[in-house]
């Protein structure tokens, strides 16, 4: 099956996609974007979080054929200039990265959270990131990173 999809602003047309192939495998193996991680494959852990048409989803639970004609944004596409997005910078500055495996999904989920709640309270942050697991249990630093990112975006003119 052929899938036409825009990934991080770039149009891709990929042939011979398996009907049951997940968007996660599609992004990693066909498009070559390995930032999106594969861990649980059942939507529990959030490490494969991406945007599909602006909606945060677990890419392991989306069939690649379902994104035909849609727009996908992965962790690689958050920063427009190929640099580091302010949310990513906040994760770096707050030390919110331990082994790093959950980080891409966590960053995308945090990006989505801050887009909807520019100044979130603690409960909102916990609720919005509830679908992202960190096996290192580095949650406190992750919460710090979200606060830092929110603070900085508020400070900007």
């Amino acid at each position, binding site marked *: 099956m052929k899938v036409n999809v825009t990934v991080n602003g770039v149009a891709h047309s990929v042939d011979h996609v398996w009907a049951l192939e997940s968007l996660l495998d599609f992004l990693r193996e066909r498009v070559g974007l390995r930032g999106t991680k594969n861990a649980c494959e059942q939507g529990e852990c959030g490490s494969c979080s991406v945007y599909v048409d602006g909606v945060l989803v677990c890419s392991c639970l989306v069939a690649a054929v379902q994104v035909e004609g849609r727009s996908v944004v992965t962790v690689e596409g958050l920063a427009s200039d190929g640099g580091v997005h302010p949310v990513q910078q906040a994760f770096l500055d707050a030390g919110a990265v331990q082994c790093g495996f959950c980080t891409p999904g966590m960053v995308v989920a945090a990006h989505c959270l801050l887009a909807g709640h520019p100044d979130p309270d603690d409960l909102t942050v916990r609720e919005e990131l509830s*679908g992202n697991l960190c096996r290192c249990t580095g949650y406190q630093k992750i919460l710090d990173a979200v606060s830092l990112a929110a603070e900085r975006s508020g400070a900007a003119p």
Partner: protein
Amino acid sequence: MLLRSQYPDASPICGGTDLMVDVNFGRARPPTLLDLTSVEDIDSWELIDDGRTVRIGAGMSYTRIIDEVSGPCPALAQAARTIGSPQIRNRGTVAGNLATASPAGDSHPALLACWAQVEVESVRGPRLIDIDDFFVGPKRSALEPDELIRAVRVPAATGPQQFAKVGPRNAMVIATVSFALNLDAAAGRVGTGIGSAGPTPLRARAAEQMLEDVLADRQTSATQEAGGWQTSATQKAGGWRRGTADRQWGEAPSVGRPRRQDPPAVGDRVAREFGALVAEAASPIDDVRGSAQYRRHALSVLARRCLNWALADLEADA
């Protein structure tokens, strides 16, 4: 529908939050997928029957149910709020929950409590299935192989509704037990729904009957005093616009604290009896998520709490 009849082996897929797990774990290998996300006009909702019923399209995500219909469908929206994580709620749908027909499906107790109807369609034509007839066994529904769910019809709330669920953590939890309560003030009826405590989602008929009688008695004795069942015109006129659900919204159970202080028990004896009748209606089993004994106990507690919350809402609205 034509495609459905031409590809009977195809698995319908919308949010994929059930099907793709089975695919990823090698438990399902459907030869084809029938992608419902590309079907137009099924991802929205509308009011029908002069505004008395909410028709929720099969493709509408839980997130949108929470955002858009928590007013007329408070119990369903509360249940949606406890489902999975934001990522799962962004994809998952009530129709998918119904098609899977798990006894633990979170939307089922609310749909039972609200006497919802499932709108299904095939090349043979459409039909409406009462929710009471929909669940026929564990993960088995009245849906025929060639049928697809088009929408779910949920009568709009005319009084307080509550949903509660017990599980090991706040997010990403399959219910150990769950319970929904609907006080239909306009008709003087009580609806209940029990999840995860039987081969199918269940209704607690004896508990409904008992509560209907108690509330009817209260109304007769309360004369013009506030706090009765179907107290006044405002009760009905206010309808769902009162925002009963919104008030509880920020305090949903999935954020890890009691929804509110337990209200002063309105007839503690009644609440206990109600809880006991609900627990009796269940036929739970021992499994990895909890023992039958625990489930019965938890169910009686959830039912009692839901009733107390709902009665507090009823008094507040009076």
